[in-house]
């Protein structure tokens, strides 16, 4: 899946910090510092208490497969197909969407345990992916 051609996220005040953590191999989950509610994807305000103050926790990287799809067509330059995409239920309770690697599409099953890993593209861009994990 390594590629330098993927569409990179724009880095703004609302999301750039998350990718900076990913570059350090940290799977970050944003946390409201006022009420401690976790949220993902990141946004500037807590929808529980309206606080604009936040920090983040480093997720364990463990989770289970909530849903998935396998992208086959159309195929875009900058990506290698087929691409399995996982919706991961993290053990902290938040969900995250990311690529699923290290498994044939036919072997993927709902609920399977997953573990994050970090892959670097040839141009140095680092992004979290998930792979099958041993049962806990």
């Amino acid at each position, binding site marked *: 899946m390594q590629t330098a051609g*993927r569409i990179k996220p*724009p880095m703004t005040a*609302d*999301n750039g910090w998350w990718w900076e953590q990913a570059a350090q191999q940290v799977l970050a989950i944003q946390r409201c510092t006022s009420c401690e509610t976790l949220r993902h994807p990141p946004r500037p305000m807590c929808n529980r208490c309206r606080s604009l103050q936040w920090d983040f926790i480093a997720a364990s990287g463990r989770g289970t497969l909530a849903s998935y*799809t396998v992208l086959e*067509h*159309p195929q875009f330059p900058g990506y290698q197909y087929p691409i399995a995409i996982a919706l991961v239920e993290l053990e902290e309770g938040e969900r995250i*969407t990311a690529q699923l690697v290290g498994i044939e599409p036919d072997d993927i099953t*709902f609920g399977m345990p997953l573990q994050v890993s970090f892959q670097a593209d040839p141009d140095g861009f680092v992004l979290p992916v998930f792979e099958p994990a041993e049962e806990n």
Partner: protein
Amino acid sequence: MENSLKNQAAIAGVGQTRYSKESGVSELSLASEAVANCLEDAGLAPGEVDGMVSYTLDSSDEIEVAQCVGIGDLNMFAKINYGGGAAVGLIQQAAMAIASGVCNNVVVWRAMNGRSGRRMGQGTGQQIVSSDLIHWSWYQVYGMLTPASWVAMIAHKYMHTYNVPNDTLASVATTQRQFAVSNPAAFGYQKPMSTEDYYHSKMVSYPLRVFDCCQETDGGCALLITSTERAKSLKQTPAVIRAVTQASVQGQEQMTSFYRDDIASLPEMEYAAKRVYAMSGLGPDDIDAACLYDAFTTEIVMQLESFGFCGRGEAKDFIADGHIGPGGRLPNNTHGGLLSEAYIHGVNNIAQAARLIRGNAVNQPDKTVDHVLVSSGVGVPTGALILGRD
């Protein structure tokens, strides 16, 4: 419901262009032709139009269409966001303008070179210019660039949760094609699709195959909304707006509501259902036919449950029993829908609903059609509409 739009306005005109894969003309040309045909159908002079509404995705500005068609003074012009989620939102905007006295006659449209020009199924690429660039970027980075890729995630979860077989999707695709086969305006005109054809179509993003996906179309479609009273003096049988609403709910994202509690249903569509049933005083049993938004087959399956035509997980049986086909309890998209007529972003589904109320639609069911339900785009901020006979 205090702020009811019930029976205040009606669809009094329907117009469209030829639907094709290569129009050979500009989107402004398609928009103008659709609007002009719509006014001709209604028997209303362009100078009588005082409001115009389209999609944020539509490339033709209101004033450019007005210039072409000969529309003069305008009191209201608006564009509605969220792709196909805008569809019945156009009707709500028009009905609000009429009910409040701001406008007398509002024309709404969508026109696009969806095949020869910018193809939605070909991905978002680098060209997104909207403010939700960050939103899409969480998916683009992994290669999720198409509506099919985003819709597949929820559809797959739903199918896993309720044991929905792929045959259910095949049935939706072939049933709607069966309608299109006898619709001269449709892509699927005289082009039958068998279950084998369905399974031979290319896998796009599991569980969605090419034949689970809507057409890509060049064409335009327009509707005239006026007061119910005024509609009665125009040429056509009015399709009275019994209820209309837009609908977005907590945790709403555009195509990727992957992070809320229940990801095997369509909460925004359930909210739309609650609103239109309350406003109209009707329930699922009162709906005689439907034009549910069908960019993908799975959206039909899930919406049958959102709108209460059957219980959770029961849509596969409802479909297997033939209820959405010819002669069924709820004939759905009897023109072929976005899947097999044309993808005019849902406005062509509203047009078919208005024709069903007039009683002269292609594949008009062999029964009295008093009420037709229409919905906007699925998995996005959406809406619903119920049309009825005067």
